[in-house]
């Protein structure tokens, strides 16, 4: 059950290059949001841009959180890429923003007790949506693959270090870590995942990346979930604007906002 509510901006700072962290005090959503769910943010009071923008939530802290300054807060990481995100960079502390959330279906955690291992693969900003998984769930052994075009596009590495020492970094230009895509890097390390039992794989990133992941994981060995990015109209299931083609026999075009954004990887019909 999503809410439409006002939040208060508590910080909006540049992390590096075109990347920003936006903190919003919004306890009604922060209390309920689950890993993989998202919010729709109205980034301006006027019609420019017209539509809300979808954002996955990077960190959220319920009202009951022990650290007072974090209580009831949501944090969004965003990259300044277009009109909407450019306007977002001018949001100031104390300003109100109109939010709808929590939206969509989040990730399914690995089964407990977790003797198995989890693998996270994030491309670009995709890694941000995967971070709440490690804070909320017992992921068992954890392997994190983070990719970006260049060093500046590699996000959240320090956050993941608190949970795992098996962090692998790829950049397409080779400015940091492995040179190539994050899927190339995963393939180069795949021999690690030869053990008995299943691996729980979570992926988020551009369509081309997710398609590449789908092409290299065996369904029997890797239980894979993908969180999809899509242009959205409403974000709450009303417009059918954000569909993705799936293997669903009757309704191949499923709404990313309502039926996803997390789908079993093998359900996506890649084109």
């Amino acid at each position, binding site marked *: *059950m*999503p*809410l*439409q509510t006002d939040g208060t901006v508590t910080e909006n700072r540049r992390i590096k290059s075109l990347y920003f962290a936006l903190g919003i005090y919004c306890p009604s959503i922060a209390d309920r949001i689950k890993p993989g769910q998202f919010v729709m943010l*109205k980034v301006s009071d006027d*019609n*420019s*841009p*017209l*539509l*809300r923008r979808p954002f996955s939530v990077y960190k959220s802290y319920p009202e009951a959180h022990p650290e007072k300054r974090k209580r009831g807060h949501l944090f969004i990481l965003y990259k300044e890429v277009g009109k909407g995100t450019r306007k977002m960079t001018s949001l100031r502390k104390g300003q109100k923003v*109109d939010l*709808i959330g929590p939206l969509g279906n989040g990730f399914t955690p690995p089964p407990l007790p977790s003797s198995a291992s989890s693998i996270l693969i994030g491309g670009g900003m995709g890694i941000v949506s995967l971070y709440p998984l490690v804070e909320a769930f017992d992921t068992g052994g954890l392997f994190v693959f983070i990719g970006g075009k260049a060093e500046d596009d590699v996000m959240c590495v320090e956050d993941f270090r608190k949970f795992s020492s098996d962090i692998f970094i790829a950049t397409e230009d080779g400015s940091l870590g492995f040179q190539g895509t994050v899927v190339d890097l995963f393939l180069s390390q795949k021999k690690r995942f030869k053990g008995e039992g299943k691996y729980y794989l979570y992926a988020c990133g551009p369509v081309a990346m997710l398609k590449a992941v789908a092409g290299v994981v065996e369904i029997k060995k890797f239980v894979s979930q993908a969180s999809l990015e*899509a*242009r*959205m*109209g*409403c974000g*709450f*299931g*009303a*417009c*059918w*604007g*954000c*569909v*993705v*083609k799936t293997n669903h026999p*009757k*309704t*191949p*075009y499923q709404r990313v906002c*309502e039926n996803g954004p997390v789908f079993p990887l093998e359900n996506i019909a890649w084109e």
Partner: protein
Amino acid sequence: MQNFDLTVKIGKIVLQNPVIVSSGTFGFGGEFEDFFDLNHLGAIIPKGISLEPRKGNPPPRIFETEGGILNSIGLQNPGYKEFIQKKLPYYKGLKTHLIINFFGNTEREYIELARRFESLPGISGLEMNISCPNIKRCGIAFGTDPRMAYRLVRAVRKATTLTLIAKLSPNVTDIALMAKSVEEGGADAVSLVNTFRAMAVNIHTKRPELGNVIGGLSGPAIKPIAVRMVWEVSQAISLPVIGMGGIMNAEDAIEFILVGASAIQIGTANLINPRTGIEVIQGIRKYLAQNKINRIQKLVGAFG
């Protein structure tokens, strides 16, 4: 607070207020129940229904332009059978009027659907979509040729006693002529405008922004054209006119009412602010109070 008479009559339907939520922008209604009490609306028009299920168009289906949205959803819907089994029972719990938007690929399909909806309880009226820009076979010919439109409406009219609204396309040279044709055909009201055929190109990929290449433009960008068309139509026919096209707030709604719309529809704005419908009702009430007008009907066509 003073009591204002917001009721308007469209065919046989008496709406408690002139605010209707538009087909294709309000899902099947339930998507909005967390945001406000749907019973306050004048009427709900769920997503358009066809005889058979429709898969819709390939993505991307939506692209934002300056002050507007291009879409090519392609009328994806579960079809008549699943609609009445799975969606229709939901509206039983609502007090607001239910108007069904429907369309066919052929005249026979339109007639068949009108006949079937006629026999179902809980439906106040039918809105015939003769104007969707997103399917190739259906709307276009019916919606842009006055003689075809006349013929189709006349045939559907014979198949139903329910209030029949013809939803007009703006993609014509003379929309008043289209309105006259459906009036002669026996429609009880007209609604306009549907979206404008439009497209956008990504200059980096040199590809269209929509999977279907061409889509329909809606939102504030089209409002002045829609206002002009509603004005022209309301002068040309004696049927009630339902105006729409980029209504974002009560001020926009009042503009349409002033040029002759008896009722209005909220479309694109539902996607951005799901509470637009109820906020428009409140805003209209406020405007009437400020201007010391006791009945909304006094505003209809009060322009000029």
